[in-house]
């Protein structure tokens, strides 16, 4: 299973980024390969409007099975994300990526 996190840093100990559209990084964890890869999304913050759909588009290219984020996507991004066949879990804020992963595994996050 491929799981994507919105994060402020590049590793398991990084803090989760509660924002979807303007998240600094997208972290992809491939469970089968036990491999964590990083995608820089910081250019999103240089744009004034409409960042959500653009980040959503990037997410599609990563072909995830699950997205784990904090506040949850805004309305524009949600319109794009609903076209995907992955699951979205929210409520993973004020914690590290590792903690978010553990909470997901323990079924402690809310499904969007």
């Amino acid at each position: 299973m491929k799981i994507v996190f919105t994060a402020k840093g590049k590793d398991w100990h990084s803090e989760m980024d509660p924002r979807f559209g303007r998240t600094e990084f997208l972290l992809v964890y491939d469970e089968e390969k036990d491999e964590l890869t990083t995608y820089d999304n910081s250019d999103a913050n240089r744009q004034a409007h409409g960042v959500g759909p653009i980040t959503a588009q990037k997410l599609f290219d990563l072909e995830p099975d699950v997205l784990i984020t904090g506040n949850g996507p805004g309305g524009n991004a949600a319109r794009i994300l609903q076209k995907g066949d992955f699951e979205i879990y929210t409520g993973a804020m004020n914690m590290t990526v590792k903690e978010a992963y553990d909470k997901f595994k323990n079924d402690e996050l809310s499904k969007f």
Partner: protein
Amino acid sequence: MKISIASGKGGTGKTTLSTNLSALIAEKNNDIVLTDLDVEEPNSGLFIRGELTHSQDMYKMIPEWDKDKCVLCRNCQNVCKFNAVIMMIDEVIVFDKLCHSCYACSELCPQNALPMQPQKMGELKRFKYKNLHFVEGKLDIGQEQAVPLIAQTLDYVDNNFPENHLKIYDAPPGTSCPVIEATKDSDLIILVTEPTPFGLHDLKLSVDTMRKLEKDFVVVINRHGIGNANVKDYCKKENIPVLARIPNSKKAAQAYSHGNLLYKVIPEIKTAIEKVADYIGTEMEKR
């Protein structure tokens, strides 16, 4: 002559000055057009009671995706500077709230698959009370962009009133795009502020904006008597004329809350508004 009444901070008295000044000038047998350009929450109309003489729906142009013509080349998304058009898998999604009606996606679509269609964004109303003509632009609930309606309201005023009528524009607060639109064609900008640290902070932002736009501007201090002298000192240091000081008074707040014009009930405020009217009179003679 066109005069915009603006401020950085909200609630400093733009509408108070706009309505009182316009009514006072009209009282002296001068034709005047007051236009409320604070289209997100116009409130000049609370103080100007006239006869409704005209009303129209206002539209902006938004691209509409034609599925049958589209070949999914993504050109529309690539040319859109506002991320308002997104090509996703087998579909082009238009985010109409993000669209700035620039036509780029529509004009540059090789398939003509994004024709522009009108979308209602608000209303324009026109009232008349003796010599006072009042025009109000009002954005529909849910619409996020003020600029297109401000631009069209300005066009309406340009096309429907003689050039020699004095025009007063009640601008939105702040220093962003709506304010630029509401001030860019004006000959003079009156910045209303209050003598408080917050008022001064946002006055400085407005002054920077007007200098960048190379506009003539003057200051009116509202609620004079509260706060401190820092606004006065700042204007002196920067050589910005302070046209008038509208005194702070509980009676003014009471009259305002009843939708009454202040100069009619408070002589000190009438004196202050008259100073502004006199300045405008002198400026008009110069032009």
